[in-house]
């Protein structure tokens, strides 16, 4: 046992149990499936993870703030619809492949705007973020349907969907974008004043207020960041499809929250990091990919994922025993 506590790698693993879990499922699928341990499959996993993963980065910030955002799935769909639709606007027809640029920019702006609306309402009304974004989850999905008229949009320009097939060295470009965002948000959270204030606001809001941190705008910025990342995720997803569907991103908020919680971020705020979140999204990505490769029936996948979520929560509680020193409340 003494060794266990001294070994830095193991101690790190104790603090980030999700990476232990990632390791275990990784080894399990490598042994159990012929197709799992393969460079191309790893590329697939990274691309598949990037959708949930990008949003999870933003969700980590929002949840460390002590808030939550349930509207990300709808925001993703709205941004994807804009990204695909705007390309075909008449004013851009002469732009050639450059017509993608204003479309993507507008889509990202829409994402930021949705985040700003949520953040502003949370800030000004003081209504719990759970309620505000639950409303937005319904409302923004309504906006998607109003905008698309229930139809799917598709990109005339194949250059758009070709983008997702590009690679940078051995890595698909989508994976590269995702990893860059991981680094950026990690840097933001651990190195910058805004990032450190994120912990302060979530860890002790009153202290943050008293210390002169402008909590409202601060939270609004984080909602805008998650809006941006959800929109980015939607844009990247739409490049994979060359299209946008109004039902895109349903239930994503649940998987994103699951991933972030698996990564050790606390719902109560003040605690969490990007390394854990990355572990959380990889855990889900690997499980899904591995179960696809092994053809676990879809019905069982639901049960397995649900059980794992609860099990990890349970183990986390065991490992990070509370500090009340045995008081039985």
């Amino acid at each position, binding site marked *: 046992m003494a060794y266990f506590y001294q070994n830095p790698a193991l101690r790190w693993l104790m603090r980030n149990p999700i990476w232990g879990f990632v390791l*275990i*499922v990784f080894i*399990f699928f490598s042994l*159990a499936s012929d*197709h799992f341990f*393969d460079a*191309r*499959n790893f590329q*697939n996993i990274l*691309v*598949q993870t990037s*959708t949930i993963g990008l949003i999870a980065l933003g969700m980590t910030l929002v949840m460390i703030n002590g808030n939550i955002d349930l509207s990300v799935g709808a925001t993703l769909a709205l941004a994807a619809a804009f990204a695909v639709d705007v390309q075909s606007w008449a004013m851009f027809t002469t732009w050639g492949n450059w017509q993608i640029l204003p479309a993507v920019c507008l889509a990202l702006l829409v994402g930021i705007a949705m985040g700003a609306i949520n953040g502003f309402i949370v800030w000004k009304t003081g209504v719990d973020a759970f309620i505000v974004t639950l409303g937005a989850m319904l409302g923004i999905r309504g906006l998607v*349907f109003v905008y*698309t008229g*229930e*139809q*799917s*949009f*598709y990109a005339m320009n194949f250059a758009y*969907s070709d983008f*997702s*097939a590009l690679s940078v060295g051995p890595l698909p470009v989508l994976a590269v974008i995702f990893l860059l965002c991981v680094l950026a948000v990690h840097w933001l959270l651990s190195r910058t004043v805004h990032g450190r204030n994120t912990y302060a606001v979530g860890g002790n809001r009153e202290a943050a207020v008293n210390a002169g941190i402008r909590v409202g705008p601060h939270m609004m910025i984080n909602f805008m960041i998650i809006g941006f990342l959800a929109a980015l995720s939607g844009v990247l*997803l739409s*490049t*994979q*499809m*060359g*299209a*946008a*569907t*109004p*039902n*895109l*991103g*349903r*239930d994503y908020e649940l998987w994103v929250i699951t991933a972030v919680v698996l990564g050790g971020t606390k719902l109560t705020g003040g605690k969490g990091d990007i390394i854990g979140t990355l572990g959380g999204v990889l855990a889900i990505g690997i499980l*899904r*990919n591995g*179960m*696809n*490769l*092994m*053809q*676990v*029936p*879809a*019905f*069982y996948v639901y*049960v*397995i994922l649900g*059980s*794992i979520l609860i*099990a990890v929560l349970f183990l986390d509680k065991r490992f990070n025993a509370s500090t009340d020193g045995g008081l039985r409340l």
Partner: protein
Amino acid sequence: MTKTMKLLLASCGTFALVGAAAADTVRIGITQNNVGIDSYQTTYEQAFIAAAEANPDVEVIVLDAGGDVARQISQMQDLIQQRVDAIIIWPTDGQALVPAVRNAHREGIPVVVTNSNIAEAGMEFIAAFSGPNNIQQGIYSAEMMCDALGGEGQIVQITGMPGYTTAIERQRGFDERLAELCPGVTQLDIQPGDWNRERAQRTMETLLTRFDQIDGVYSGDDNMGVGALNAALAAGRAEGMVFIGATNFAVGYDAMGRGEYWGSVYQSPVDDARAALQTALDVLAGEDVPKLNYFDTPKITQENMHEFDRPVF
């Protein structure tokens, strides 16, 4: 790690299905739209597996996208990754799967689209489509409606889950055909029932309140149609109201037998599944397969229903 044990157990069950691949068998991957959302898809899956098991030279990998486009794209990637010989896809969205199909095409894996077709832009990348003609089904329903009402009347339409191809195509076929065939029939409103009987029932209840005179109801499938029928029965207004659906379900068949339900479109998931597998095998055998392979989905009405077996779902 008891959960890992569970996972092991769960996966062992499916291992048997994969078995050891012999050299001369073909491996076909299928990714379905949303098994479990209704019986049609479940029966399809079972029929597909049964058909594959009956053929010793075929090994299948059966996946389900759960209605999520992104997950279906992942599954396409995973199937390509496993270098299956052919992929059968039931697209969650006709547009959005085009690039994924194109990828498979580029990797040299033939793709057969089943049940609901892929968008026009993707047609050049698929080996073949096999399935019902959903637009044609909408047309059939419009024709039956026209017949039943004698060209005059006010109807409402209850559509499937908004945004899904099957729902959109049936609605399009119905709307266009009805307008051209029976200008005397007016559509009072179109509301979605999400393929859900209870939701259709609730929607119909409100429509019954809103409109004093409803002569006919067209529903995107019989499941919703029966929901609408339930609502009308409860309101005591079913008498003389014409109910027309699509994808004849057992409940719809029975209601037809009782004379409450006018007609539907008979579509067998077993035929659908078998046709898809056969098309894929034909493609792999190098046969010259036409791009569009519609299997027959005839009209079924109270008059001719005895010619059909009661649907199993």
